[in-house]
């Protein structure tokens, strides 16, 4: 060990950690002598696995118990068994396409809102991310700057995103001022049902498109350049190059992006909750908010019903996640 005369800031900051790690060596050496390498493996694994167990696995098991028991109590032994009552209540409809005919109309409103949101948001996201990635990959000056412009909202918190747009979309906000300057009719963006719905799609695309554009950009950069040179020598038209070279080679990444954004879109909550709180009425009420309202916020709190709804959403997410894992593996092997 060479001791430098002036310790760097990093060394000063990590000093307590180094000291702790050194102090831990003695008891751990004793532990290793006592239990062998197996004991050390357990020591390394247990903290992480304990957290997984207590905060993921145990709740998942409780989730199933909740979904078949009733009442508002949180303690399991205080909850009477009700069988499939919650699922029955959630799924019974005369006409599934018309939430007002359902026993739990809010749930179906949320289901259909979320479905519409997922389809529109994921398609908009994919198209915008694709165009942005193609442009960022082309020969433009100041690439790093442009990438940063499209990417920075990804890091903003959903509360910040929600409030930024609430400020712009409010009745006397910047957007209505722009319309006023252009002599166009002003719109109550957040209090008209269809505009509020469109706003939640637009805002969530705004907030996340940089992330997906970045994944696609990495995919584009991995396409070997000689393919394009060959196409150029053959005098292939640019449009044909896109459909015959770029798209097929980008396909695996594109699928990963679509599935990832599907998984996120199904769970949409934060920005929308800050922006519209699910309103006006139930126009932007999505599934996670339904679970949140039924589980925690509503006067008619019903943890069992919330768990049943969450498990159904979980089922969809398991399928999507398996698809994502399979696709990622397939892409990386290619």
């Amino acid at each position, binding site marked *: 060990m060479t001791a430098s005369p002036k310790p760097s800031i990093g060394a000063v900051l990590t000093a307590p950690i180094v000291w702790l790690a050194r102090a831990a060596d003695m008891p751990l050496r004793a532990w*290793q002598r006592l239990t062998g390498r197996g004991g050390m*493996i357990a020591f*390394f*694994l247990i*903290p*992480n*696995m304990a957290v997984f167990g*207590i*905060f993921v*696995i*145990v*709740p*998942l098991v409780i989730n199933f118990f909740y979904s078949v028991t009733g009442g508002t109590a949180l*303690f399991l032994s205080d909850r009477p068994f009700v069988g499939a009552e919650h699922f029955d209540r959630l799924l019974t409809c005369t006409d599934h396409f018309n939430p007002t005919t359902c026993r739990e109309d809010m749930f179906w409103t949320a289901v259909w809102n979320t479905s519409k949101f997922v389809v529109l948001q994921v398609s908009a996201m994919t198209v915008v991310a694709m165009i*942005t990635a*193609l*442009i960022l*990959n*082309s*020969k*433009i000056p100041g690439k*790093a700057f*442009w990438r*940063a*412009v*499209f990417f*920075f*909202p*990804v*890091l*903003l*918190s959903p*509360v*910040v995103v929600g*409030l930024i*747009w609430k*400020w*712009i979309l409010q009745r006397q906000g*910047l957007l209505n001022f722009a319309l*006023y300057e252009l002599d166009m009719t002003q719109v109550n963006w957040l209090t008209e049902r269809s505009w509020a719905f469109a706003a939640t799609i637009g805002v969530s695309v*705004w907030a996340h498109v940089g*992330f997906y554009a*970045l*994944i696609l*950009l990495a995919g584009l950069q991995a*396409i070997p350049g000689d393919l*394009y040179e060959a196409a*150029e020598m053959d005098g292939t038209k*640019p449009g044909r*190059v896109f459909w015959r070279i770029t798209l097929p080679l980008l396909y695996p990444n594109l699928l*990963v992006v679509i599935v990832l954004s599907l998984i996120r879109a199904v*769970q949409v909550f934060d920005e929308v909750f*800050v922006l519209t*709180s699910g309103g006006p009425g139930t126009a932007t009420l999505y599934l996670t908010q339904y*679970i949140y309202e039924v589980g*925690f916020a509503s006067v008619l709190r019903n*943890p069992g019903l919330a768990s049943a709804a*969450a*498990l159904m959403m979980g089922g969809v*997410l398991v399928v999507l996640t398996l698809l994502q894992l399979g696709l990622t593996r397939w892409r990386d092997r290619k």
Partner: protein
Amino acid sequence: MSVLRMMTARRGGKGWHWTDVFTWAWLIMGLIVMFGPALWLVLSSFKTPAALAEFPPTILPYAAQTVSVTIDGQVKDLPLFTTTLDDGTVRQLAEVRRLGTMATMVDPANPTDSVKVNIQNRTPVRQIAFATSNYVDPLEKNNFGLYLWNSVFVTTMATIITLLTNSMAAFALSKYDFRGRNAVMLLIVATLMVPLSVNLVPLYSVISQLGLLDTLWGVILPTVATPTGVFLLRQYMLTIPDELIEAARMDKASEWQIYWRIVLPLTGPALAVLAIFSVVWRWNDFLWPLIVLSRKEVFTLQVGLNTFAGELNVQWHYILAMTVATMIPVIIVFVFLQKFITSGIASTGLK
């Protein structure tokens, strides 16, 4: 080397192809749409409540200019107006009092000489002024100082624990062969499929059984075992040659020493990426803290800001300033560590 590079190549070296126009239109629109809202937020956050209520809004923050005038031996701060007098002359006068549509104005230099003016014949003199009280007041009066501290505490603690537990698990899973290793890996993959939104209600009951409701630890602990973190670190540790570890063992290093003196330093870049992401994740967390925390004393910035914005009497000047304050740390992280973040996303799909 790309399609667009070919597509945007100017035909014959002159003139603009339509793809050039499209590219630049997209970039300029992107600049306005992506960057504009944040810029507008920052500019608005320095406006006084009166300036915020104005329609049409001004771009820069303006405030009415005042002037000190001595009237009857008393020094008063009076608003200044550009006034058109009856004889057509234009002068800058200060308003002493106003009754209905008529205002009594004086010349600041000569306060004894007053004139009565119709308020239609004057406009306020304004200057660019930054209402910094928007930032100072909430931090001092509205608990935001406390929220800030809570957020810093949660972010720091969660990140330290995440790095420690995830790297230990990743070390065990990459450098040891043991029975059940695949089962453990599978379990970690499985937790990927159970996002927070699915486990909200039962997780709440676990936290309440542990007595962690309304505490910052109730926010921190459920977040620290990120499966993506374990994966990222394990992938990286797999590339560290086992010979190094064998050599250390021959030198009688303990397994713990191998972990923190050999493997951990070599995992530096991956740890840095995980640390950056963990800081951003925990700083931005909203849904879980919203559920666990119900007392103001333990609110994080995000929850406090949302609650403040949801109050009946919406004080936009404070909300906007605190929104800017909330995004500053993340922007700093972004500006200085952009390379780590973008390469982390591109190579692992982390978010």
